[in-house]
């Protein structure tokens, strides 16, 4: 199943060789296709290869087998067409909010006036219109993640990769940020892959929800969900009252629970 448009992950495997001579099979035979503009969330117990998958898509790691194709061309390294949002600490503290957001265009050599316009627009969109000239370390964690989103969008990438972007935020801020992610997704039409540890977040922020299993890291199950589309113009708390929501949540929670149990069991057996 190969198409020229969207993101293709073909038969991807990743093995890390360890210094002690052993190796870890972080990913095995992962196949996936994302259409342009799709929003996919990824769940799975720790160590099932979520970050590794994202790093390969971003081009930070070369897979031991398989390949990634974006709009028909093979990924060989990082590039501005695949933006990345990290959990925290990836902003440049030595730059103001404005300079952080304008970083990508500046690297491309975009004229200053144009950068200014883009940055102003994006910061207004993410609700930081009054903080443009602030230093990033003066902002709260939630605001910093808004800056990170704006910085990524300023480059107008085709795909946005998010590795637990809201993991370090408190519950209330997190809920607001989830709405913001949905709003930006709808407005920009970007392809987004979002890794999360929270089942609720995965349900709300995924048209598609991928559950991965560990050892070796692989796709365990995939869901198609209506909640992301509903959340675009509804309050997320209303979305959670949807009749299917609680059922799906229980199903996925117990699935992950079982996997974690199995990991624990294996660790006990080893020792």
């Amino acid at each position, binding site marked *: 199943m190969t198409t020229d448009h969207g993101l293709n992950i073909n038969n991807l495997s990743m093995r890390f060789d360890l210094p002690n001579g052993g190796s870890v099979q972080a990913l095995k035979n992962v196949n996936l296709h994302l259409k342009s503009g799709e929003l996919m969330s990824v769940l799975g117990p720790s160590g099932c290869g979520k970050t590794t998958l994202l*790093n390969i898509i971003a081009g930070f790691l070369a897979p031991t087998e398989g390949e990634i194709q974006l709009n028909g061309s093979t990924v060989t390294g990082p590039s501005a067409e695949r933006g990345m949002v990290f959990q925290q600490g990836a902003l440049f503290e030595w730059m103001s909010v404005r300079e952080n957001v304008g970083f990508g265009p500046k690297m491309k050599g975009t004229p200053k006036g144009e950068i200014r316009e883009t940055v102003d627009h994006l910061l207004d969109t993410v609700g930081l219109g009054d903080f443009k000239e602030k230093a990033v370390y003066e902002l709260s964690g939630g605001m910093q993640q808004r800056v990170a989103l704006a910085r990524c969008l300023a480059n107008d990438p085709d795909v946005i990769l998010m590795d637990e972007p809201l993991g370090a935020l408190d519950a209330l801020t997190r809920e607001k940020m989830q709405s913001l992610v949905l709003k930006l997704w709808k407005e920009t039409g970007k392809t987004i892959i979002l890794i999360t540890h929270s089942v609720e977040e995965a349900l709300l922020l995924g048209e598609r929800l991928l559950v991965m299993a560990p050892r070796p890291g692989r796709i365990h199950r995939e869901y198609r969900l209506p909640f992301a589309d509903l959340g675009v113009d509804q309050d997320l708390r209303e979305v959670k009252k949807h009749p299917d929501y609680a059922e799906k949540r229980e199903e996925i929670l117990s699935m992950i629970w079982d996997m974690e149990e199995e990991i624990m069991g294996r660790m006990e057996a080893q020792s």
Partner: protein
Amino acid sequence: MSIFTQLISELFNILATFVMVLPYLIGYVLLIMLTLGIWRIVRRFMTPKQDFGALKTVTFGDESAVTSNSAASVISIVLIFVLWGSFTGSRWLPSVLHMPGAFQGEAGFSYTIELPDGSTQDATVDVVVFGAGENSPKLSVDEGAQSAKNDGVVIQAYRNKLLKWDANDEFSRKDGAKIIAINGQSIAPGGEAFVSNLRVAVTPKGTLNIEPNKGVQMEPIWLPAPEAVKDRLVEIATAGFKNFMLVEHLGYSLFRVIVGFFFGALVGIPLGYAMGLSDWFRGWFDPIVEFMRPVPPLALIPLVIIWAGIGEVGKIILLFLAALWIMAIAARAGVSGVRISKVHAAYSLGASKWQIMRYVIVPNSLPEIFTGARVAMGVCWGTVVAAELVAAEKGAGMMIMVASKFQQTDVVILGIILIGAIGFAIDMLMRWAEKIMVPWKGRG
């Protein structure tokens, strides 16, 4: 085995000294507690200050509850000067605060000699004690009519003098005359007697050793009064010291530090970057840097003198070496300490390697480099003073070394104060620069 016993005996000497000092330490601590008590009482009568700290019930173990009490700082500094002035009889202090000083003025005693035939005779000794730095006064003595003539002696404060009392007498010690009493108290050779303001001892050979009372103040040659140090500051600042003006001495020291540090940073920072970015450079320089780092720069002084002499070049090479390794290690740490997510973010925002170097790695390393620079400046300042102690024609260290040879303790103390003040100022300056240049330090 013998080195072991030697060290043990040294250890006993040190312990003995420590035990001797201990009462003073305890006294000092008691003084601190006393002022604390007074301060608490005083504060109770003032309007109570309202802050959150005052509402805390748990303060022990909460380090945020402990801030420096500025009253204690002021008292501590003032006390140092008061003690200094008190033990040196400073003019700046009212004399009630002075410790008893060395005796100056006129004193005297009488002695009794016994002749071989058993007869005794009395004579007097007039003593005049004059202060250090004063001209020794003339003393005329009425020798009297008896055959044991009266004597007179002029002594400088803190010194003693041997008196050959028989030099002017008709009987000498060779004739078997000997002193048997001072002021009527009987005394034997090797014994001593205390008369007002004097200690008079009879030596085994029978002469008199006269020592005026020293009090408990410090002799200026050990510790000059604060005003003497200030006067010396004025004198050196206007007239210079050993052919060079004070600003020249201090200016040269500072010049060496700044130039040496500059070149050390100029070479050390790129070296550290290379080590942080390339495994080949890392492997090449790691053994060199790791070996050179623990070598104290002072240990290099002899070699640098052999190679480059005692001129400016030698000193600057020394300071260059002192700063080089510190700066290289700081820059290396700054580069290796970059969070990989920052670099990844920059790559996926389209930055090239060169742009990542310029916009991410270099600014990210600045806080570490500033910390290194502060350390390096401190080490350079210490090293320059030590190098000047060894060999220099001008400089702060040379000043105190030469002064100590001429026993100009006031210059030595002045020099130490100036060296401390400049070192402190350098550190303050570096902190300030750090605040301006890397305001994000520690907030990433």
